């Protein structure tokens, strides 16, 4: 359930530093090292002292510990929402551009900060040197340090503009279209070509272009799944677009990136990138109505309760309100309440029992339900697979 980021990243393991410290390629790139350094900061992954100070006997034990830590860190993806680990064409293009700019910035940083430090140390006051000469300027130098940054900026601007046009949101004609509609505080996903609607968990096929056509039902939101693409605002009265082709199977985290009110932090989502055959199977399942298990008394009772209360805002199989997410197949989702709770009995009970506590300010009222009724409702919703 909580597996995020697809198959564990395959990282040849050499020794047991914290987390995924260990890229075994003959020479890890500096940027990868930087990423690894992040790993060390991750909570729950304690940095283990390098082995060179340890007696040889300890090494096997440490390796075991290290492997466990690596497993902890990498069984899921340590950074499921990272902008630095792209898994799509657009995401990769952006990351490539960022890398170039980043390295220019590192060069400038090192040069200028060194110049500053050198000056500060070299010219600290020493009375024996006497009063400094009053230099008022030097035209040649000033022209050169005007032109040098301008020249560097050209090297940043050209790939920038190329990438702008590469990632402008247009997709090929065969792209799967998804209408993304932002709500306070959940995501509605409609597939007009496939005639299905879901919420908060976007399913897309691997290797197939996707076109998101986005708008908002209320205030401005922003669709952001960092591993797949940069963010794009989702606005009322306007249509915005994103296009990308996901290149890896897996579950990728995202969340609203534009402040949209009280529960902005609770407006999360997941994108499930599936192998094309699995995606097709998911589409088929979503398009069929789930039969009600009439043998289960709780499910039947829950269904009746749903029809008296929840249906005002939530639709199942095309019947019901459109204020909240469509719940036709809510049981097939991994999370509930826009990704903030696991979609199991406990999570659903918590959510329906007191929506305002989980997602402050949201529109769903707290119904005074008897425990039995709540359990019946949960059972019914879980049966909607």
């Amino acid at each position, binding site marked *: 359930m909580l597996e995020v980021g697809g198959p564990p990243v395959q990282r040849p393991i050499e020794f047991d530093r914290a987390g995924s410290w260990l890229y075994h390629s003959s020479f890890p790139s500096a940027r990868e090292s930087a990423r690894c350094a*992040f790993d060390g*900061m*991750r*909570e729950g992954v304690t940095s283990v002292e390098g082995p060179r100070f340890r007696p040889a006997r300890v090494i096997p034990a440490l390796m075991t510990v290290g492997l466990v830590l690596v497993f902890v860190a990498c069984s899921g993806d*340590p950074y*499921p*929402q990272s*902008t630095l680990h792209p898994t799509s064409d657009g995401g990769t*293009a*952006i*990351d490539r551009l960022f890398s170039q*700019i*980043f390295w220019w910035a590192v060069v*400038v*940083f090192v040069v*200028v*900060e060194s110049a*500053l430090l050198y*000056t*500060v140390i070299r*010219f600290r*006051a020493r*009375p024996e040197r006497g009063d*400094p000469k009053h*230099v*008022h*300027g030097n035209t040649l130098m000033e022209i050169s*340090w*005007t032109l040098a*940054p*301008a020249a560097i*900026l050209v090297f*940043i*601007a050209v790939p*920038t503009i190329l*990438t*702008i046009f590469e990632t*402008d*949101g247009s997709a090929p004609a065969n792209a799967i279209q998804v209408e993304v509609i932002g709500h306070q505080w959940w995501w509605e996903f409609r597939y007009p070509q496939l005639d299905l609607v879901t919420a908060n968990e976007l399913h897309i096929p691997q290797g197939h272009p996707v076109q998101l056509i986005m708008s908002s039902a*209320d*205030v*401005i939101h*922003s669709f*952001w799944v*960092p591993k797949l693409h*940069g963010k794009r*605002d989702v*606005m*009322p*009265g306007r249509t915005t677009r994103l296009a990308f082709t996901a290149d890896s199977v897996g579950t990728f*985290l995202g*969340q609203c*990136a*534009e*402040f*949209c009110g*009280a529960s902005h*932090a609770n407006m999360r989502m997941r994108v499930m990138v599936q192998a094309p055959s699995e995606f097709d199977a998911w589409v088929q399942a979503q398009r069929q109505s789930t039969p009600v298990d009439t043998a289960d008394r709780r499910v039947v009772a829950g269904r009746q309760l749903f029809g008296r209360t929840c249906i005002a805002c939530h639709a199942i199989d095309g019947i019901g309100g459109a204020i909240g997410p469509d719940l036709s197949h809510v049981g097939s989702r991994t999370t509930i309440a826009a990704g903030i709770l696991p979609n199991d009995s406990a999570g659903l009970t918590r959510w329906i029992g007191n929506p305002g506590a989980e997602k*402050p*300010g949201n529109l769903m009222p707290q119904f005074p339900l008897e425990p039995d009724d709540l359990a019946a409702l949960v059972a019914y919703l879980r049966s909607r697979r």
Partner: protein
Amino acid sequence: MATTATPHAPDVAAPTGFWSWITTTDHKRIGILYGATALVFFIVGGFEALLIRLQLGSAENTLIGAEAFNQLFTMHGTTMVFLAIMPLSAAFFNYIIPLQIGARDVAFPRLNAFSYWLFVLGGLFMNVSFVAGPLFGAHAISVAPDGGWFGYANLTSTQYSPGPNIDFWVLGLQILGIASLAAGFNFITTIINMRAPGMKLMRMPAFTWMAFVTQFIIVTAFPVITVALVFLTFDRTFGTTFYSVAAGGDVLLWQHLFWLFGHPEVYILILPAMGIVSDVLPVFSRKPLFGYAVVVYSGLLIGVMGWGVWAHHMFQVGLGPIADSVFSATTMLIAVPTGVKIFNWIATMWGGQLRFTSAMLFAIGFIGMFIIGGLSGVMHASPPADLQQTDTYFVVAHFHYVLVGGGIMGLFAGIYYWFPKMFGRLLSEPLGKLHFVLMFIGVNLAHFPMHFSGLLGMPRRVYTYSADLGVTGFNRVSTIGTMIIALAVAVFVINVLRSLRRGEIASKNPWGSPKLEWAISSPPPVYNFSVIPTVRSRLPLWVTDGVSEIPDVPPVPVHVPGGSMWPILTASGVIVIAVAALAKSPLIAIGGALAVAVCIFAWAFEPFEV
């Protein structure tokens, strides 16, 4: 602040007592008032930051709820921008500009007092919202603004923000805008008209120059936000539909207007600090500013170019590839004059005799950290990269490096540098250095990890985040850094309070500075200059015969304008109108408007000779 008693007393002796401060029109006193008030708001805003960081110190923390958190970050941003950094700069504009150009006061002393009172009352008005809930029948005690300092439409509409929270923000900003506009015109007039003989524009100290540029940005940028806020007020109060999508309005209209103001506002915040650094570095290097003209022109250029970059705050809305490319290019270009300044500052120190006083340390710290903020700024000048960075902690890191590492550090440099001029006593150097070291560590510890938490996917303005994101460690370090900043500020406050009473007595020119303000006593007499000096050099005190003789005792009696109660009364009338808008009461509004009209009338006919 005591004035020196001289045998030739001015026409109006410097009065003392509480009432004399309320009615003062002396630019020096108003400067001190601005500074003291700004520091109080700085501490309030810092306390808000501390609460924000405590909440974010661990994942899924429940210390502060969503609503309170949103109020805190909204008020933290609003307070730091409008109530701390801007008025702290204004404190220096007030106190220092007339002294640097050889004037006895600003052009409009009463308008100056009006600006101050409007600022302090506007700031109080906004902060009262923290306890005003019961007045509005709200379930919470606090109805503080909660739409972010940027207040994006249509979240700020009555539909999505029905409470008084946004009204406090809109009205408060309008009030502060009036204060800033009045001050801006005042300083422009002062700098153009009141320079002493020989104080040509290209002889003005770099600080006054940057302040001059800042005033032009203020008087051109604030009308834009004023218009945007009027639209919003009308939408909220009279049901107009400027930002209402259902009625054909456009939510992006607000963003364009806000950032058309908002980006120049960034330069309003940073240019004064750049000016301070340009004044401080030469003094403690014993060398003139390297490339004075280029530093001035690049400041002007930044001020002008600042108008052409606003849409880089809007890359994520999808303005289209052409607009994105253009605004990307203009944004990158603005890095050039900024870089030039940095190189000129380093060149100023090159070959000098560097004395590491607290002021100098803060100025050097400014350069070191501003470089980091500038470089991350170039990163999100690139729209595709910005799509991953904007609205994340990466951007939070960027502008805190610019505004805290840059702006605040620069202003602290100014405080250590000019404190002896303002109060006649030096701040403690050991405490100053401790302040610097703590501040330097704290700022970097708090903000550098934010680069990582942002790149790893943590959005801004979230009151909680999932432990799954893997950013908890970075957040914890940031929180510790913020606590160290708080400690640094505590050291600073102790230093100020202690030095006001027991600091080492300052001579006229304790630092050996070349500028005009150091030619007179510390603190200066109420009339500033016993005779208006004639200036013959950009560095009047470093060259022989750079300025005419300024006797300690005025050869002829000096007339000094007295106080006036109309500025504070007029400002109070404006607040009454704001309260009326909040209470939706036309009657109170009419009363307030009448009061303002009467006060302005009385003000205009008050016998007040300058």
